[in-house]
């Protein structure tokens, strides 16, 4: 007997979670199925809405004013400006005091771990005191055993980027880390639990030891930045504790994978999804689907009757009225390719792409890369469209990085597009159940 729901969301990243939350606001039964770990752990945890226009213009101080000018087919053009704002409201409600940036339409400029700055619309509270668009000299602290973040170099880079304050960096040894290749989570847990560590001054808690390690390096700077490893489950306590001990503001510089801010965002979303009554099934792939084609014949788009989930080799049917496809892009494997073609692997939705794979890229690594725009085209209801611009299915909506027609990396629009399209896809799916 098939598992039955009203709305079935396939994919558990930012877009899938948002779609599930939006759908669950209606009076419907919602399930979210995800296969792999979401790509959130690769991501910085920042919510970018639009940092640069597709023409390259930017950094944009106001992302919202640029949205109406986006080209046809861009996911924001599909859902419209109001939906972007509503989706951000949903996110702000979910994030509560874990995120900042909702007080203004303006983008913030955040220092990156490479030392440049980037525009973003919502940022973790832990990042807030470090904004490059805020005054206040900054001391950056790096650790010998974390080679991704070189604090003196990042500080010099920030100054080269023209930030309106002095930046300085020091590299220290992280107290309590004995191994040169400890995992990122080891640093966080050491601080979370305030474990006892050995220092020159005897045994002390990890937070106190870290503060004492940094104190001799602190000049007049009112804020001190660390790579984003300051705790996991008790990150707010860790940061407050360090700030109290040092007598300055303490902030985190977002990092690449594995990214604690990304993992914290994932936890936040999944708590909200659970609170909203969404049923969640993880670790299983959707491998097939069945339609009602046999009954309806050729009139209009087919309906998806059910999808087949592979659970340890058993084929488990899942039936729903409406489906949301939020399986990610090339990174999340919601869009795949071989030597001949690019395709969407579950429903084989149309993915426009040049026939010759040597036209999938340009020679400049940061040029206008066609592959970065690979994904499914959709109508304004976010239904995937076939090669003739007709909906692939009557009851399938798509959201997030599986959508084509935009380059989230160049635009810095990934988070915002996932929120806005997830929100619209989830809401429409719920509405269409009635």
């Amino acid at each position, binding site marked *: 007997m098939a598992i039955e729901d009203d709305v079935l969301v396939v994919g558990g990243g930012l877009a899938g979670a948002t779609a599930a939350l939006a759908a669950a606001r209606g009076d419907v039964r919602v399930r979210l199925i995800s296969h792999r770990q979401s790509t959130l752990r690769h991501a910085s945890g920042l919510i970018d809405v639009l940092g640069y226009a597709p023409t390259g213009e930017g*950094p944009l101080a106001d992302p919202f004013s640029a949205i109406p000018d986006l080209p046809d087919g861009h996911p924001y053009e599909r859902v419209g400006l109001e939906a972007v704002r509503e989706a951000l409201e949903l996110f702000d409600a979910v994030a509560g005091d874990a995120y900042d940036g909702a007080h203004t339409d*303006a983008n913030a400029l955040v220092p990156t771990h490479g030392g440049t700055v980037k525009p973003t619309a919502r940022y973790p509270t832990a990042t807030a005191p470090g904004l490059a668009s805020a005054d206040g000299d900054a001391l950056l602290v790096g650790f010998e055993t974390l*080679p991704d973040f070189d604090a003196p170099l990042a500080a010099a880079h920030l100054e*080269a980027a023209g930030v*309106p304050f002095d930046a300085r960096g020091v590299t220290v040894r992280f107290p309590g880390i004995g191994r040169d290749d400890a995992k990122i989570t080891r640093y966080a847990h050491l601080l979370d639990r305030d474990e006892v560590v050995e220092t020159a001054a005897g045994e002390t808690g990890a937070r106190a030891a870290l503060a004492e390690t940094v104190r001799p390096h602190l000049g007049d700077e009112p804020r001190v930045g660390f790579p984003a490893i300051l705790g996991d489950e008790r990150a707010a306590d860790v940061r407050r504790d360090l700030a109290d001990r040092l007598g300055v503001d303490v902030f985190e510089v977002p990092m690449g994978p594995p990214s604690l801010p990304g993992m914290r965002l994932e936890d936040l979303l999944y708590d909200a999804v659970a609170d909203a009554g969404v049923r969640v099934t993880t670790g299983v792939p959707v491998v097939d689907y069945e339609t009602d084609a046999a009954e309806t014949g050729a009139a209009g788009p087919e309906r998806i009757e059910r999808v087949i989930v592979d659970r340890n080799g058993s084929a488990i049917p899942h039936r729903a009225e409406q489906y949301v496809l939020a399986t990610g892009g090339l990174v999340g494997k919601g869009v795949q390719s071989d030597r001949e073609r690019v395709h969407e692997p579950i429903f084989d939705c149309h993915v426009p792409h040049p026939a010759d794979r040597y036209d999938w890229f340009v020679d400049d690594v940061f040029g206008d890369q066609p592959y970065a725009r690979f994904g499914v085209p959709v109508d304004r209801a976010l239904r995937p469209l076939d090669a003739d611009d007709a909906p692939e299915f009557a009851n399938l909506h798509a959201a997030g990085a599986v959508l084509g027609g935009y380059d989230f990396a160049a635009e810095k629009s990934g988070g915002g597009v996932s929120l806005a399209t997830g929100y619209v896809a989830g809401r429409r799916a719920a509405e269409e159940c009635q």
Partner: protein
Amino acid sequence: MATDTGVLVLGGGSTGCGIARDLALRGLSVTLVERGNLTDGTTGRMHGLLHSGGRYAVSDRPSARECIEENRILREIAGHCVEETGGLFVQCPEDSDDYFREKLEGCRDCGIPARVLSGREAREVEPYLADDIERAIEVPDGAVDPFRLCVANAIDAEAHGARVETHAEVVDLLRDGDDIYGVEIRHGSGPGKRTDAAAGTTEEITAEYVVNATGAWAGQIGAMADLEVEVRPSKGVMTIMNVRQVDTVINRCRPKGDADIVVPHETTAILGTTDEEVSDPDDYPEEQWEVDQMIDTLSELVPILTEARTIRSFWGVRPLYEPPGTGTADPTDITRDFFLLDHADRDGVDGMASIVGGKFTTYRAMAEEIADHVCEKLGVTASCVTADEPLPGSEQIETLEAGMDDFGLRSPIARRSRQRLGSRAREVLATDAANPVLCACEGVTRAEVRDAISQSGADLNAVRIRTRASMGNCQGGFCCQPMANELHPAHDEETVREALDELFQERWKGQRHALWGEQLSQAMLTYALHATTMNRDRDPASESGEVEFAAFDDGGMATNQVSGSRGDR
């Protein structure tokens, strides 16, 4: 007349570095100049096969004998650059029995140990071989790291007093009548080069004798002194797989053909190759069908290659040469033998010889012969010692390995470091400072990267060829930035940024030919990390316009709250 150096060697490939080492060991004063990095030409663009000679056992027996002899010498003097994989010549159903027999007899005639395996035995050695492989000849082919070997020659040349100048392009040969007496070089020319000499400045270097060891570029050098050196550059494509589908070199046992070899190399396997004449060694088409042909044809030997992940493809140019008038049409028929063109004998111009043709496996023997020639010209009687003197890193590897600690590195990391560094491992890895892994794909630690930087300065591609960092699955996506970080503070922020960009673009270049499946997914992840997370594509530090910081969100409420709590303390 006083000269700057005794012998000036042009070209920093295996031949040039081998000649420089040989002459330096004989006590001559040597200067080597190279346009780009060491190995930038043909040496850095080969498939890493250490020939047993089996490949030439039918067509060219003198070459085959020379290969097996040099193969044995390199295992002795360069053990840390060689992996003794062994090799198989496998016979497919459509391949001729006669040729198989000729190959076997040829190997035996040339002193190449050869043994016939049945198809079943061959598949026991290499389980991914096709089911229809009928039989195979086992020979002592190996894999060699051309970067490590070439650099080791350069380092040893320097240790014996040679000057090695990279990023120094020859812009003119100095010729006075019938005498060539040196070159003019331009420092740091070309895109994005950073040396400690001022970029763009020129320097004249005079020498008693000049050796043109620029391979496929030898004709261009010759032309600077109105000498005709008719090299025939021939391109070949190689495709790198992300894992070793085979641990033995797999050759196809047929007379000749494109796409007939798979060489296991470090963490990868390299598919090769094609052979097509080109007119310009710096500018030739790199085409999709060549990559597809490589995968499709070699899948006949190793079927899982069809489904496997490739991480990049690259092309190299052979410096083929044949004496004028030979007129061979097909480049695969041109001899792989090398030629010493003494321009005094040939053109009546004193002071220079050009070296053309040849192959990597016999670079040392070539260097010996050329060094003999140079010594004769200069009246020097010292003899060659390179067949006996181990290269830096290969002295007493066994005793060192047996007695060595692991330097606090996890065992696979320590093992790989030790393989790369050989007997230099202790000197490089013994550090009190933190030594985290910077390149997880290849297990390269900070100490190794810093050692490479101490040899090569701010050129991260030079660091790459010394360490293999950024040459694994992620193709630098994760490790380019940490590698660049190590340049600071010895090099300023702008230099570091340019070095990072150059390495990043270089890593992208080869991946473009592997952009499907897993590698396209990897490329998108890399792009997202560098563009989204770091905003390196729109970095205000690299862009011309100023950012109006004041127009952006300064944190407003958030900062005030935190400031407020600060007042409580």
